[in-house]
Structures are given as structure tokens and as C-alpha cells.
């Protein structure tokens, strides 16, 4: 379970003292076994929230916990799989070595890593390229290698930042299938996106963030029950926030 309580984060803009609020007093709970979509226009604060959850940045205020443990405790990440937006990996490592690293760093045995690597590389369709250096991979292949890395240690919670970005329709379907498979296994999935159809298809609940503030949190089916589309709701929220963001 993911619990975010009143987090705020400001960044300095340029050399001057002007500060920009990336996230403002955000409170959110994602339940166990749930697929939660974090929707928002570019620069809304989705990635900042996710990076706070992974402890890559520290909030100015508020706390976050995953499975009851504060995210500042490194042990929390033993059960979390993270896919960054536009992931970059070491140029001269192979996909196999990348997964070895992910497994070892999460405390897996060599035999378990080998078995899981075979399984995952087949799933993300990188079996043939497993011994190639990552620098020779296309953008989509890097994204798929990143997904395999995020899942190598069979985490209870998967946090994906724009998992569909840079993928072709086949890749997008693969990611969708993976998310549904994780859901089937009772895992918690939290992913950000600004692609409305992805949220509609895969998520149980959705949170809409605009200008650093969480505007809506609700079940996808109840939001869509009145015949309105997610696009209408999203644009309305952006409008209310005074932003002219495009989807």
C-alpha cells in the first residue's frame, strides 16, 4: 500500500531566488492490489511525486510510506519496482547484466536471478538481444529492458513513470498486458501517464494532478458512469486550474 501525506516540493528556478511549486500539499492513498493511474499534463508534478516515493528527491513537507515503511528507509525499495520516465542505462552492459544487477542489489540468489531473467526477457521480447550492449538498443527496447529491471525482484509494488512512452503499439500492448498480469497477481501498480486511454483501460482508480495539486481522486468506472469521458473531466480540471495544457 502506498500512502502519501501532505507532501510539498519546491524547486529553485534558475540562478535567482524564484521558486516554483512542483507539488503542493498532496495526500493520496493507493490500496494493495490496486492499479492506480496518475494523470496530469506535462509539468503537473507527476514525476516529482514519483521521485519522492523512490526517495530520489526529498519533500519539503509531508511523508510517504510504502507497505507501512517510510520511503526514506532503503529497505522499502526491496519490494518496489521502479521504471523512470525515459530510462537511461549503462551503455556497455547487456540486458542480462542489467537484470543481474537488479536482482543482486535486491538480495536475490544467482539461480533465482537466472530463472527470472529468462522469464522476463521472454516476456518483454528481448531474449534475442540479451547479450547485446544496451547502447545498441532502440528507445523502445531500452524501455522494455527498464520494465524487466523494475520487475526482476518480483516486487509487491510497481511504480512506473510514463511506461508507454516511446513504445510502438505492440510495445504498448505488452506493457498493458504486464500491468494486468501484475494486477492478477495481487500487486499494487502506480503509474503516471498523460495518455487517457491507457488510464481508462487499465486503472481501477485515477488521480488527476494539475499545477502540483491533486484535483480528483476517484474510481474510473464511477467517473465515467454519467456518460462523460475522462478527457472531458481532465480538460475541465485543467481549465479550473487556469492552465491551458494540451493532452
Amino acid at each position, binding site marked *: 500500500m502506498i500512502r502519501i501525506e501532505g507532501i510539498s516540493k519546491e*524547486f529553485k528556478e534558475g540562478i535567482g531566488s524564484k521558486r516554483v511549486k512542483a507539488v503542493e500539499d498532496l495526500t493520496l492513498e493507493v490500496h494493495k492490489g490496486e492499479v492506480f493511474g496518475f494523470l496530469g499534463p506535462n509539468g503537473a508534478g507527476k514525476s*516529482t511525486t514519483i*521521485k519522492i516515493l*523512490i*526517495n*530520489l*528527491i*526529498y519533500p519539503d513537507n509531508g511523508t510517504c510510506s510504502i507497505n507501512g515503511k517510510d520511503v526514506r528507509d*532503503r*529497505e*522499502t*525499495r*526491496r519490494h*518496489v519496482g*521502479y521504471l*523512470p520516465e525515459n*530510462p*537511461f*542505462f*549503462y*551503455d*556497455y*552492459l547487456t540486458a542480462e*547484466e*542489467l537484470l*543481474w*544487477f*537488479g536482482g*543482486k*542489489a*535486491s*538480495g536475490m540468489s544467482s539461480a533465482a536471478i537466472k530463472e527470472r531473467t529468462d522469464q522476463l526477457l521472454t516476456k518483454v521480447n528481448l531474449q534475442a538481444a540479451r547479450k547485446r*550492449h544496451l547502447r545498441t538498443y532502440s528507445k523502445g527496447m531500452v524501455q522494455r529492458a*527498464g520494465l524487466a*529491471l*523494475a520487475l526482476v525482484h518480483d516486487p509487491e509494488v510497481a511504480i512506473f513513470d510514463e511506461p508507454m512512452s516511446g513504445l510502438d503499439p505492440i510495445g504498448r500492448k505488452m506493457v498493458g498486458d504486464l500491468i494486468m498480469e501484475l494486477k492478477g497477481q495481487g500487486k499494487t501498480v502506480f503509474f503516471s501517464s498523460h495518455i487517457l486511454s491507457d488510464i481508462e483501460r487499465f486503472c481501477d482508480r485515477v488521480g488527476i494532478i494539475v499545477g502540483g495539486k491533486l484535483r480528483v481522486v476517484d474510481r474510473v468506472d464511477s467517473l465515467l458512469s454519467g456518460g462523460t469521458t475522462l478527457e472531458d473531466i481532465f480538460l475541465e480540471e485543467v481549465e479550473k486550474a487556469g492552465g491551458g495544457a494540451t493532452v
Partner: protein
Amino acid sequence: MTPLWPVAVITFKEGIRNRAVYGISLFALMMMAVNLLISDMIMQEVGKVSVDIALSSISFLGLLLVLFVGINLLAKDLDKRTIYMVLARPISRGEYIIGKFLGMVLLIVVTMSILCMFAVASIFLVKMRYSGYFPRFSWPMIFLSISFTTLSLILLSALSFLFASFASTSFISLILTIAAYIIGHSMTDVKALVEASQSVGIQVAPFTVKLVQIAYYIFPNLSIFDIKTQAAHDLAIPMSYIFWAVSYGLVYTCIVITIASLIFRKREFP
């Protein structure tokens, strides 16, 4: 398993497969050929010149390794955000720095061992051709000199990690590391110069003397690891000197890496 080892392994693999390492090895091969050529051209002290060229070459190539491969290994992690894949694991920022540094140490030791083979081969070939010019020569001194160079490179690499822990770009880390290298090699001479001037009656501002003395104790004294001249002339080095130099190098490195990991603990990666 401690999380340091996987970080060290991927750092080493990423470093050793870098094309710059191949370039350095190729350069070492060329230096070996140059050593043979120069030995053919000079008519005296062939042994000393040959040892000096071989040791200076690997010292220079080791420096290139730290400056252009080592600094990049950490800088790329920060610039390209490959650090995300490491910190998303149950690894603290401090462990990341230490693991990364261990990988770098492994890279320095392995590369220096390769360069050492080239140096030994070139000296051996020259010695075979001009054995009469090697009256005072000992292999242990050659290996000791290379080991000292390796230790100084490890210390310099630790400093580059310290600079990278707070510098915003890799270029700043590079400049600071080069500055630390130059200061580290010349501080003993500068201190001696400033202090000796006073003893012969030349006035040096007390502030300058104090500044040099403070800098002498803050900056690493890399010149103590430079025993190329002693190796070329087969001059004995007391065991106590070896002990103190090694202890100094290791303790200084540990302190620098500890400070780097403490600074890194505060760092964010937006």
C-alpha cells in the same frame, strides 16, 4: 550480500569496456615501442632512461584513466540519470558512492596491471639488448614504484568522487581533480621553497607561509608516491617509508570517500 558488490561490478564492467581503456592500452603499446627506439638512440644510461620512460608512461596513462574514464563513470550517472536504476534498489546514497568507488579501484588496479605488463615487457626487451647498461637494477623496485603510482591514482580518484559529490557538472570535477593533482605533486616543493627562503634571509609574507603550510596539510601529498627516480637508480627505500606512505594513502582515501558519501547523502536527483 552487501549492495556494494553489485554496484562495484557494474561500474567496473562499464569502465573496462569503455573505448578510452582500449585507447590507453594502445597508447601503452606505442610507448613500449618508443622505449625501444629511444634506447637505440642514446649511448649512455640506457637502463635508467628505459625504466624512467616505462614508469612515467604508465603513470601518465593511469592519470588519463582517472581523469577521462573515472570522472565520467560518476558524472554520466548524474548527467544521464542512470543513477536512478541504482538508487531505486535498497541502496543508500552512501553505499552507492562506496560501491562506485570500489568499482573504480578495481578498474584502476586491473588497468594498471595491464599497463604494468607493457612496462615490464619494454624494460625486459631493452635489458636483453643492452644488459651491460643495467648494473644497478631491481624488479622489486619497479613493481613498488608501479604499486605506489596505483595507490596515488586511487587517492586521486577518491578526490574526484569528492568533487563530483558537490560539483554541478563533470567539467568542474575534472578541473578540480587536475588542480588537486598539480597541487598534490608540487606542494612539498612549494613549502620547502617558502620555508627555505626565510632561512637564507629572503622575506616571504607570513600570511603566504601560513597559507602554504595549511594547504600542505589539507591537500594530499602525492609526491610521496613518486619513487620513479629511486626505481630508475635502484636506490633503497626504507620499509618504514613504504609503511607510512601506504598508510597515508589508505587513510586519506578513506577520509575523502567518507566525506564524499556524507555530502552525497543530502543530494537530490530531480
